[in-house]
């Protein structure tokens, strides 16, 4: 297996046994690294917000890229004793999974200040650097076997892919059994296994040091995990700060970390009418990954509190007597109690987060008083779109959970989150489940300029028009209170008597009727006029996108399901011009972080890739040819574009993000691992032409088939959906595992000096690929993003034959 690698002193074991052990170490270390990536997604989502997810991928791959650069710079030294360095990288990587995170918690870092406080940047850099350390160490350890130990790249890379697949698949069940604070024990344990294999290798010396490192790993696995320090701006942190706050229940699982906190200072009633003069009962607040998810009024099940009748969102209940209600998303017990307080005949709640359902139904039943006895309540644990496709029942009111919040949707934290329920296809599916006169209802916070309400109205109008239910304007009513709006739509036109009921409801509770237009409103300010004009335009104006609008309010589709993305990058200068110093509240932070992570990765890549050429006088400049850089950057970009787009599209069919992430990352890694393992058979230039052509075809065809099958698949069982998802990605993933080791083999044959450089390039451009995948999905859609990935593979194919050739010459 070895091809004349430099020898570590005193190595008595056979080459094959040693190679097998190295492959095993790579397997476990890759598993640990991938598991670390997945648990960090949860941990940082909990500590901060989900927009940190692209950063995780970034720092992971930047660590890998940095490893390649470092190895290239110290190549001569590494060549003297690669086995020893390999062992130490493994031994240091394992404890680093835990220690780096613990250390990062000491960095007082406030993401909100990045836009205007230069001091926040160095802290951000330190935070980012600390989290990249374990990835750097594992990146070094994984690269050394094929860059310096000269093991065949195919099996090593296959072991890395297989380890990644195993890490992803083990991480998912681990999320169910380990509390959030203890999640890092998984990468730590997997790292410890890798360490154990290294420890038994007598080569490399410093045995006492190795034992000490392993003891450190074991010590970290038994001491209590680090307390998670939340950003002070997280909802959970704010409520915990209140006097008398106490956690009364908690659950964790694949879908998230759920907690219920009781604090006397919480009085949640978003948008409550100012006509309500009574008392709001004590409440427990529910949090999902630290963000407020719902409210549980104390003893509400025994008697629904009166305040629940005083919201604009109650409008559909004023138009339908004793309705059968479908609520998409569980909001504590408040949603069900609202239905009970407003005389629903039954309620079905669809909620994919099993742990949240158990928390509300079982753990909090003593506090809440259970569900109201007079109201039949059914809870279905599945994705909203899956339920709408599968269940053929008809409902009188279908309520989507609040589509905007007062805080974080304003800040654009969720701008990069997929919302398949609010796409045209989602609205179509919901409209199809409405009975005669049934109402589809949305509510949320008012914004100025108006956004969510206008976007949902345009989406509804588009779908009603496609179904020839025109004019759509006769089938919609919209009202607002002092802070929130409510929109109802149905398949049949509203009667004048019903519009009168809407008007009376508004009059009784102090709300304003926005649609049907009721003429000018006395005292209406600029905001009111703007809202009315926007709603009127959405209902009766020309259909299609308004290119001149500051915000993008066009309906979204399943191909780019980003309902909360309103920002048009090209209008940013206009914001600044109009608002001067006051423009910051309108920035969408999720997108800012995405673009930021792309910028950081590109700048770092440019800087670090030039380092070896600038400082190393050992032929690196020759090794780092444009062809090598072009080839491996194309591979890094393309792999991430394809993998992450499958992941994002998979969320719809698989029902939630974390399952889609586990299956996509695990599936791609597994099949790519097989591809890498057999890559030796396809290393000829002729065969590789077919491989690249095959990748392009399989990527595009696989994705098109998956997209086309998504709709019928939604109604199928979990097994069928999973199988279909994996089947469509498998051929592409298998072939995508071949190009990297095939090219590494060519570089090895040319002397191997460029291998660390290739590793670095691939790592850095994988970071850029991760950000670009999200940017592509946001602005181009999934299909075009996948096509770009396929084109990049074709471009890499054109460069393949030049890889290694220039170095040889």
């Amino acid at each position: 297996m070895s091809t004349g690698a430099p020898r570590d002193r005193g190595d008595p074991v056979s080459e094959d046994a040693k190679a097998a052990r190295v492959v095993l170490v790579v397997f476990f270390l890759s598993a640990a690294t991938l598991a670390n990536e997945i648990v960090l997604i949860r941990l940082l989502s909990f500590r901060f917000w989900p927009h940190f997810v692209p950063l995780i991928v970034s720092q992971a791959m930047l660590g890998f890229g940095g490893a390649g650069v470092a190895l290239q710079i110290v190549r001569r030294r590494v060549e003297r004793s690669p086995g020893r360095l390999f062992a130490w990288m493994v031994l240091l990587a394992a404890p680093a999974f835990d220690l780096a995170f613990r250390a990062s918690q000491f960095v007082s870092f406030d993401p909100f200040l990045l836009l205007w406080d230069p001091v926040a940047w160095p802290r951000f850099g330190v935070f980012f650097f600390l989290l990249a350390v374990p990835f750097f160490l594992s990146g070094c350890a994984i690269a050394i076997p094929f860059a310096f130990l000269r093991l065949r790249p195919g099996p090593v890379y296959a072991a890395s892919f297989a380890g990644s697949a195993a890490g992803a698949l083990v991480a998912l069940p681990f999320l169910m059994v380990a509390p959030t604070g203890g999640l890092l024990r998984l990468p730590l344990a997997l790292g410890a296994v890798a360490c154990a294999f290294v420890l038994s290798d007598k080569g490399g010396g410093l045995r006492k040091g190795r034992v000490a490192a392993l003891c450190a790993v074991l010590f970290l696995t038994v001491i209590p995990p680090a307390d998670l320090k939340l950003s002070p701006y997280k909802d959970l942190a704010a409520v915990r700060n209140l006097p008398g706050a106490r956690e009364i229940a908690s659950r964790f699982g694949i879908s998230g970390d759920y907690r219920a906190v009781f604090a006397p200072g919480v009085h949640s009633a978003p948008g409550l009418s100012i006509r309500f003069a009574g008392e709001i009962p004590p409440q427990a607040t529910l949090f999902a990954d630290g963000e407020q998810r719902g409210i549980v009024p104390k003893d509400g099940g025994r008697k629904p509190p009166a305040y629940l009748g005083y919201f604009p969102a109650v409008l559909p209940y004023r138009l339908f007597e004793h309705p059968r209600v479908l609520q998409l998303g569980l909001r504590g017990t408040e949603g069900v109690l609202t239905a009970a307080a407003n005389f629903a005949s039954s309620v079905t709640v669809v909620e994919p987060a099993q742990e949240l359902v158990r928390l509300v139904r079982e753990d909090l039943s003593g506090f809440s008083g259970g569900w109201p006895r007079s109201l039949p309540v059914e809870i279905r644990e599945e994705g909203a779109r899956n339920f709408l496709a599968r269940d053929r029942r008809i409902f009188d009111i279908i309520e989507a959970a609040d589509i905007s919040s007062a805080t974080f949707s304003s800040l654009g934290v969720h701008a990069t989150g997929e919302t398949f329920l609010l796409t045209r296809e989602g609205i179509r599916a919901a409209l199809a489940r409405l009975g005669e006169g049934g109402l589809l209802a949305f509510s949320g916070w008012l914004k100025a300029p108006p956004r969510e309400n206008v976007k949902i109205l345009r989406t509804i109008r588009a779908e009603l028009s496609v179904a020839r239910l025109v004019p759509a304007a006769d089938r919609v009513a919209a009202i607002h209170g002092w802070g929130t709006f409510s929109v109802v739509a149905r398949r049949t036109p509203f009667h004048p008597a019903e519009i009168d009921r809407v008007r009376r409801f508004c009059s009784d509770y102090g709300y304003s009727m926005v649609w049907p237009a009721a003429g000018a409103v006395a005292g209406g300010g600029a905001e009111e006029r703007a809202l009315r004009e926007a709603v009127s335009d959405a209902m009766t104006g020309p259909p299609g996108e308004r290119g001149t609008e500051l915000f993008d309010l066009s309906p979204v589709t399943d191909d780019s399901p980003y309902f909360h993305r309103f920002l048009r990058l090209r209008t940013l200068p206009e914001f600044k011009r109009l608002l001067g110093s006051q423009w910051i509240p309108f920035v969408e932070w999720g997108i800012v972080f995405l673009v930021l992570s792309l910028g950081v990765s590109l700048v770092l890549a440019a800087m670090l890739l030039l380092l070896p050429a600038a400082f190393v006088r050992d032929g690196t400049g020759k090794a780092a040819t444009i062809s090598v850089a072009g080839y491996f950057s194309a591979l890094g970009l393309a792999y991430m574009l394809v993998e992450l787009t499958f992941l994002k599209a998979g969320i719809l069919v698989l029902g939630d993000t974390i399952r889609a992430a586990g299956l996509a990352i695990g599936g791609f890694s597994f099949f790519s691992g097989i591809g890498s393992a057999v890559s030796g058979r396809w290393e000829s230039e002729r065969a590789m032409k077919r491989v690249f052509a095959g990748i392009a075809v399989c990527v595009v065809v696989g994705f098109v088939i998956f997209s086309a099958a998504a709709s019928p698949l939604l109604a199928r069982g979990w097994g069928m959906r999973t199988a279909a998802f994996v089947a469509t990605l498998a051929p592409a993933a298998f072939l995508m595992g071949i190009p990297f080791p095939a090219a590494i083999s060519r570089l090895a044959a040319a002397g191997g000096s460029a291998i660390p450089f290739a590793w670095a390039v691939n790592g850095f451009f994988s970071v850029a690929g991760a950000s670009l995948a999200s940017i592509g999905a946001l602005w181009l859609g999934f299909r075009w993003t996948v096509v770009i990935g396929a084109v990049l593979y074709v471009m890499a194919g054109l460069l393949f034959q030049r890889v290694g050739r220039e170095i040889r010459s």
Partner: protein
Amino acid sequence: MKIAIPLITIAAAVLSAALHPALATDEPYLQKRAAMVRDQIEREGVTDSRVLAAMRDVPRHLFVSPEYRSKAYEPYPLPIGEGQTISQPYVVGFMTQILRLKETDRVLEVGTGSGYQAAVAAKLAAEVYSVEILESLAVRSRRTLSDLGFRNVVLRQGDGYYGWEEKAPFDAIIVTCAGGHVPPPLLRQLRNGGRMIMPVGGPFMTQNLVFIEKDAQGAITHRNVLPVAFVRLLGH
């Protein structure tokens, strides 16, 4: 004599600074404060001369932690700890102006935070009662207001949702922390003819404000008001 006057001035300044530590650090910020009022407040549509004068008087930098003092007059909110922020100057000016505070007014503030809004209001009204739920902020802002000599601000730690029943009714109520609804107890404690303002939004942004008035008969009306700068976004 020509020399004596500046010397006396300097001596007075030194003495004043020594007696009042808060003022010792004010000098470098005077220009910044004047620029803030001119560029961020007045230019953006806050025209009430009393409000402008109050904001020129109150040393905003002393209401933020030392690490943020140099940024105290910049046009954005700043952290004050415990996940709370001091609002951007413009929003403070806008909220204060819309309340039309008179020298005889009794004002309730819910959410003392840094104490800056209370200080600005105290320059314009007779009495300011301020409630802060977080003890650490209450302690710090009480000290700051006391150091700066604000004798007409009374502060207590408690749940501002319930207002300050013993001191009610109030001519004006400022809710400085964004809330999900208008607390009914506050409406009850608002005097007939009183005004109330409350922001809607997250910790680092205010996109919207709700303004409530109680007429002479006790009838309540409300309207959303938009900071003037944001109106430009609407094209009106």
